[in-house]
């Protein structure tokens, strides 16, 4: 099992290595200016000397991202259950959620800064707005996903609505919920970084990118992008790993052996 996982890592690792080597080669051979594209070695060097700054930026941004992710996903899930209980709420809330999800992030980010101040809570608010709706629509669809036969079964047991929800419809919705959780990792990352373009204390990944572009510190921009890419992938990977553990029974993960 462990051996196979290691073996699975070899091809992407090799591809990445070759890609970096080609990148380095082209930049050096063609003499591409650093402003246009720094070589991987230059980015790595900048990364290594800037670890304290990058770490501070990372924590600042992650605070807003995680807080927004938890609140956005959590409220999306709860509202989905409410919407499911009442047709009135469904007809009222779903179109509103639709509208909110269509709001441009560059428009709401400055407004959130006015409402919640310069620090991370305003970034969290932007992330809440971005992650809420995907969770809402996915969960609503997931709650509908149990088959007619599975529902009839609960009916023959004279199960209450609440029992049907907890024993059947919520577990059946889990694959949809995890879909939203995974999509939202990316949205939360983008939201938290972009929101920092519109007012922030002098720390944070979005702040770093916007200021370093101004100073032509392109290698620092790339080092920050590297941090964002690594942490974004790790965040997604963690959620995907939890998904595997929780919805192991779903057709896409099943193993006959167990």
């Amino acid at each position, binding site marked *: 099992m462990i051996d196979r996982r290691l073996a699975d890592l070899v091809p992407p690792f090799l591809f990445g290595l070759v890609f970096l080597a080609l990148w380095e080669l082209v930049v050096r051979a063609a003499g591409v200016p650093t402003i246009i594209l720094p070589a991987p070695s230059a980015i790595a060097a900048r990364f290594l000397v800037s670890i304290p700054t990058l770490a501070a930026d990372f924590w600042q941004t992650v605070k807003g991202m995680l807080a927004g992710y938890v609140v956005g996903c959590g409220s999306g899930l709860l509202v989905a259950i409410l919407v499911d209980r009442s047709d009135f709420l469904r007809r009222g809330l779903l179109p509103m959620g639709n509208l909110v999800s269509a709001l441009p992030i560059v428009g709401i980010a400055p407004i959130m800064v006015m409402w919640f101040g310069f620090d991370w809570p305003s970034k969290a608010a932007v992330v809440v707005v971005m992650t809420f709706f995907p969770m809402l629509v996915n969960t609503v669809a997931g709650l509908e996903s149990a088959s007619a036969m599975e529902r009839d079964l609960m009916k023959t*047991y004279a199960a209450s609505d609440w029992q049907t929800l907890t024993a059947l419809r919520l577990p059946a919705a889990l694959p949809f919920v995890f879909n939203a959780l995974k999509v939202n990792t990316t949205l939360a990352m983008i939201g938290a970084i972009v929101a920092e373009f519109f007012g922030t204390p002098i720390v944070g990944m979005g702040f770093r990118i916007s200021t370093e572009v101004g100073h032509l510190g392109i290698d620092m921009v790339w080092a920050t992008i590297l941090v964002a890419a690594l942490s974004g992938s790790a965040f997604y990977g963690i959620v995907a790993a939890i998904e595997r553990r929780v919805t192991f029974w779903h057709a896409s993960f099943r193993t006959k052996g167990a």
Partner: protein
Amino acid sequence: MDTASMTRPAAEGGSAPNEPVIEVSDVSLRFDTRDGPVHALAHVNLKVARGEFVSFIGPSGCGKTTLLRAVADLETPTEGDIRVEGMSTEEARLKRRYGYVFQAPALYPWRTVARNIALPLEIMGFSKAEREERVRKGLELVNLEGFGAKFPWQLSGGMQQRASIARALSFDPDILLMDEPFGALDEIVRDMLNQQLLRLWEVTGKTVLFVTHSIPEAVFLSTHIVVMSPRPGRITDVITCDFPRDRQLEIRETPEFLAIANRVRHGLRAGHSYDA
């Protein structure tokens, strides 16, 4: 022939042996579809006594599944009345008188086999100790000892259907409603499950309503066979089938068995004749 009466003293004990457990009176059921109304059932009458094993047989669209679902309160008749142990179907459902076995096992994939069997017990509020005991007995009853910790998708189709039967029996309902439970399985597995089902019926003395497509299956299992025909769905014949309760597969070779099978076949053919 629209009316069929089939009360007779039940073999096993019950409070009032002559009182029908299920009484269907002049039931019609119409589905309003986009293409106009579909008459799934038209003026169906039927009485089932305690402890009977009644099979429903007929071509697709004859309403046999609809009738079973109406008895279980999963469909509501447009006209007529169904009484179950003197109650309305809804009361009987709320009092958990039915165990229903569907065409597919409908086991929840996130629960182990044991926890699937325990599902109705959890919903009905049985204690943990009671649940464990009943699950153990249930697994034993359908020959699935040792498979309780497996997940449904790790079992064969036949084993899954057996688990769903154990689940339907776990809370000890008076009436077992089975909708083509073995339809998707191959002959050999089906024979084996039929024998197990007969043994189960003999041991538990439950009243069984059983929908099937298969003539030999119906004749082998039943005390009564209800032959139905489509458009509109109605009962055309009720055939008594009084082999001993502990019948073996070998009775399928006997002239008596073949005679009954023939009568069922003729009944089915008569129902078909006008829409060929």
